[in-house]
């Protein structure tokens, strides 16, 4: 068990290192002439050369990588590399701020978005999935299955636009202003406004995920519900609710946790679209703007963050499922 976890942790670190090096190489090749991108439109050659020297863009790539890892682009003097203490992700070319600080300032938005959506989609998927598995092939099961296929067939960006059209635009033309069309309020500032601003974005993500998870929960429950101990529990007179949500669901939870971890980790991609539609200033938007504007320290930073979230989720899922099922360890 411990050996397995250590091996997994080591592999996770190797994965992250590889992602770092590949992203670094990719951005260095992709943005061929960053100085020209960053300089003012009519900059002289001297200015361009100055920027190139300041960012060490004229050095060979391995020296650049070393500088990135150890010191970071030290425009402001202090070392800001990943191998320093405290570890940092370098300095944004465009915004003139440390990348770590930029990401940390946007992270609460994306985290609120992802975790809130997770709570909604998991609750609804489990309710719908259990309801469907109770009576397979019943009208309710068929209706829920049709609903989840429909949800699966609409991309998040279309769901988002439709939600914002009907629940924001149409409602507000009738004078009903339940949901704001865009923007974000911090949780600590005003919890009610926070939830009001995030309701539609949460729903956008949750609808797509319910399409996947309702069927996962249903299939996992069906696998378990035929087992002997469920029959025993029913025979003993355990209430149906406890049989379903106590005995059966806890046994069926492993595939749900596994896929849930992966989906949560992949939300960086889905969150970009949702953030864009609802004007949320989160990490996804930061990443897209950086990639479009050639600000590659930010591109590398956000990519590493996404990869780290993915790797940590996979690791956590592995540990949890193993703890729940010692036989697999």
């Amino acid at each position: 068990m411990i050996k397995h976890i250590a091996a997994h942790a080591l592999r996770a670190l190797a994965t992250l290192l590889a992602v770092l090096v590949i992203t670094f190489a990719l951005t260095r090749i992709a943005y061929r002439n960053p100085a020209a991108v960053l300089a003012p439109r009519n900059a002289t050659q001297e200015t361009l050369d100055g920027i190139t020297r300041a960012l060490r863009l004229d050095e060979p790539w391995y020296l650049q990588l070393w500088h990135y890892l150890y010191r970071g682009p030290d425009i402001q003097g202090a070392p800001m590399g990943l191998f320093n203490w405290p570890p940092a992700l370098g300095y944004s070319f465009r915004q003139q701020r440390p990348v770590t600080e930029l990401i940390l300032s946007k992270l609460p938005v994306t985290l609120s978005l992802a975790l809130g959506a997770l709570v909604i989609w998991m609750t609804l998927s489990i309710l719908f999935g259990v309801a469907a598995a109770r009576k397979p092939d019943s009208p309710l099961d068929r209706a829920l299955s049709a609903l989840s296929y429909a949800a699966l067939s609409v991309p998040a960006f279309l769901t988002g636009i439709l939600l914002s059209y009907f629940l924001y635009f149409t409602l507000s033309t009738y004078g009903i202003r339940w949901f704001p069309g865009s923007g974000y309020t911090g949780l600590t500032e005003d919890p009610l406004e926070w939830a009001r601003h995030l309701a539609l974005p949460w729903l956008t993500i949750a609808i797509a995920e319910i399409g996947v998870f309702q069927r996962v929960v249903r299939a996992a429950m069906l696998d378990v519900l035929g087992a002997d101990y469920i029959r025993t529990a029913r025979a003993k007179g355990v209430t149906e609710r406890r049989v379903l949500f106590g005995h059966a669901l806890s046994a069926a939870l492993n595939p749900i946790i596994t896929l849930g971890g992966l989906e949560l980790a992949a939300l960086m991609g889905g969150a970009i679209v949702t953030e864009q539609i609802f004007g949320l200033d989160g990490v996804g938007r930061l990443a897209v703007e950086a990639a479009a504007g050639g600000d590659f320290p930010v591109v590398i930073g956000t990519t590493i963050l996404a990869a780290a979230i993915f790797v940590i989720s996979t690791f956590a899922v592995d540990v949890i499922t193993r703890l729940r099922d010692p036989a697999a360890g």
Partner: protein
Amino acid sequence: MSSAPPLEPALAAYEAPGAAGRFLTVRAILAERSARTGLILVGLVVLAALLAPVAAALTGHGPDQQFRAEALAENGLPAGPSARFLLGADGNGRDVLIRTLYGARISLLVGVPATTIALIIGTAVGLVAGFFPGRIDRLLSLGTDIALSFPFVVTALSLVALNRGSDGRPIVDPVLLVILVISLFAWTYFARLTRGLVVVLRNRPFVEAALSIGVSRPRLIVREILPNVLPVVAVYWAVQLPVNILAEATLSFLGVGVQAPTASWGNMIAEAQRTSLYQVQPWFLLGPGIAMFVTVLGFNAIGSGIRNVLDPQG
């Protein structure tokens, strides 16, 4: 990109080699109602893609042709649905219906090759990783993990920047780039699936028997193991295809996929959203939105039908 639907049902059905091959007949699939519905929907979409030029010729509207005089009002607002423009016109005075039909071509033209390339790469990696345990497996699995942990959209953006030549023009066709970007991510799912299947098959007696009579390993993999995994992998192709069609639409929506003026459902919806015209003239969303829904629903229904054939309980 949201990950693909789970594989457990397909894998659970795969207990004996050849099981899928034995039961997965055209007749069995056609007996499934959801598969029949799916085939009809997909048939309609393919028909729309094929007939797009015919519709363009009949109406006399090219997909990128602008009819500013007829389709735009004095104040620049596009005209609504009419006999000449069945689904109305967009902000540039182009026929929304014709563009939607041409969008079907792009959707299939990106989705099908991308999924096929992903299948070929993923199956090859999975076969090798599953057949050679130890160092080779560990290395290939690490490679799969690395590819999986890249954020899809951000990396796609970097690759689009990579594709910009020194004169600012794209080096390869953006459509080709979208195909490559999607397959670069989608192969991992095929690799994991195939590896899992091969690990099970490798311990079967027929593999040992073949090795003991001196069949070479490459031959064993290609002639004995590949035919056994191919049915399941092919089913997964149908499951992955709608995911990739949505990935193309999402990239185009974000402006990193198929570029204007080429019509793609994603960039049509993006244009409607950017100009906010859809708020007063919702038909902008109607064409591409419904087309995308029907296409993805159709492929999902086929995938679900095939899964029901493989695993009637699921």
